């Protein structure tokens, strides 16, 4: 499924990765990270008793690549560093994915993770930029993040900064007209420091995209017609994710869309068994958690 259109030489990839303030990890380490963060996502939502583990899991490879694969220049010690690259989680209900990544990167003490959704915890049900370092945008109402990301991207232009802005949106989220307003405007301003990633997990809240909004198809043609450079990848293949994220940085004069084919809870039985909406907005029960963690361990070769 990989069809990144601008493959890079190994050298160039290494150089790009070095830009980051965080030590960048090897592909193997990144897979290890995905394993760890996936565990955490399931554990903390089960502990909280509510939340969106499946929506978080489908995005975790991409988020891991962004924060730890040398893609984003960022520095947990300076979350407001003006030249930092930005990540905007437009599909805010995947907050757990963002939180575990930020904790892993050192933005805050990982102990906080277990306070998810508790009164007083800065780890709210949806991201609150005023309460947690590293959170770039308060989201939770779908459709708004891409416009916000575009604002950041335009600010870079005014300030002569070279930072890049990454924005993750849901496939169902693309039902929202504001997404297309932002898409059109990004094309108008030829912003090439803006990369959107569509978490194409094929499910929305009440059912599969196929049923709820088949009008979303064909998704690649839509974004092309809106003036974007489009790349389509397997969003659970770390090499493919990295390659696409590297490649889009070379695009000039056009915003870029990475359509990441993903699954809600890939390979994990409790999710795989649900063909209604792949457990949208449902945490795993303690029993399901055990099953899912075992499945995960197996997938990542962690079986003892």
């Amino acid at each position: 499924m990989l069809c990144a259109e601008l493959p890079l030489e190994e050298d160039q990839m290494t150089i790009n990765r070095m830009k980051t303030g965080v030590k960048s990890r090897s592909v193997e380490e990144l897979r290890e990270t995905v394993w760890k963060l996936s565990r955490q996502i399931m554990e903390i939502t089960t502990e909280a008793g509510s939340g969106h583990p499946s929506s978080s899991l489908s995005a975790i490879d991409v988020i891991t690549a962004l924060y730890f694969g040398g893609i984003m220049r960022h520095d947990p010690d300076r979350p407001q560093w003006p030249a930092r690259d930005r990540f905007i989680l437009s599909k805010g209900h995947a907050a757990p994915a963002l939180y575990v990544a930020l904790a892993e990167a050192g933005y805050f003490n990982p102990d906080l993770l277990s306070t998810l959704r508790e009164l007083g915890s800065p780890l709210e049900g949806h991201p609150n930029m005023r309460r947690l370092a590293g959170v770039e945008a308060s989201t939770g109402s779908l459709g708004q993040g891409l416009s916000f990301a575009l604002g950041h991207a335009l600010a870079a232009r005014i300030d002569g900064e070279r930072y890049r802005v990454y924005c993750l949106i849901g496939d169902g989220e693309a039902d929202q007209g504001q997404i297309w307003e932002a898409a059109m405007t990004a094309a108008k301003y030829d912003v090439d420091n803006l990369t959107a990633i569509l978490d194409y997990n094929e499910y929305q809240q009440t059912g599969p995209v196929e049923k709820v909004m088949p009008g979303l198809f064909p998704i690649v043609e839509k974004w092309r017609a809106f003036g974007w450079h489009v790349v389509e990848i397997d969003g659970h293949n770390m090499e493919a994710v990295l390659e696409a994220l590297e490649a889009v940085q070379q695009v000039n004069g056009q915003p870029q869309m990475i359509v990441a084919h993903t699954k809600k809870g890939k390979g994990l039985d409790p999710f795989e068994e649900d063909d209604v909406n792949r457990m949208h907005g449902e945490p795993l029960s303690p029993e399901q958690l055990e099953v899912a963690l075992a499945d995960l361990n197996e997938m990542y070769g962690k079986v003892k």
Partner: protein
Amino acid sequence: MEFGKEIGLKLGPPTRNAFGEALKELGGENQQIVVVDGDVGNSTRTQYFGEAYPDRFFNVGIAESNMIGVAAGLAGAGKQALAASFAIFLLGNAYDQIRMSVAFPRLDVKLVGSHSGISIGEDGPSQMGIEDIALATSFPHFTVLVPADAPSTRAATRAMFSHDGPVYLRTGRPKVPIIYDGDVPFEIGRANQLRDGGDLTIIACGLMVAAALEAAHTLSAEGVEARVLDMHTVKPLDEEAVVRAARETGAIVTAEEHLLQGGLGAAVARTVSERHPVPVHTVGLENTYAESGDPLALLKKYGLMPEDIVQAARRAVEARRGRDGG
């Protein structure tokens, strides 16, 4: 939300469920009813209708603006169209669509907002409808219903479809106490008096009706007797009941799971100050968003407990006495 336990109120189903069931029933009785969903039918409970009458159920995806336009067009073609989403996404993402395509042409569209108030809890402020009453009442000619429990939500749903013109119905996510366990009086625009008392009147809507009853019980033990009104229709406001309360009890407390700005309290204060000025003290969210957390803990932290009504009542009675004596 277990308010009123000590006065014998029993926990009933969430109002969103009662709405969903009533809607499904009505769908069987009236073929002209059609429903438009913004891909949250499993949350708002319009799903019950959708499963029973798939040909009259349209899921337009996560696109609230379009949802309203489609519902309005269906109404323009003669249907009784209902559109539902989370309260804030419905009213916030489609405010201008409701104004232009529903309120201004007075089309027969029914709007239902679930996830009202802060008692949704852990999902947090982005999903909480705390301004929906202000938004819905701002539309000229609109009717705005905020029922207190499951039985009256069922009645409100029926009343809504008997009414010709745009209606907004507010529902909630948590289980709430049953207020009406036998007969359910429900007339649009007519407050239900649940308790009488001569020292002040507590005017409440939604979940806060149970809290008001509990507060009245507490006050009674202190020798303060409160009238309690279930103001299930926030618009048109039952001004006569409000003025009567002002005249006969001399002090008013309002209680709502909503911002004070533009809510029930503000509407009551406007009526009272124009027609019979007496102290009106308001319980609600004061100029703030809430946060994620356990529903009950949130209600405590943000001042929406029976105890908060009791305190407001004491202040209101105090203020009345100050005036009477002065």
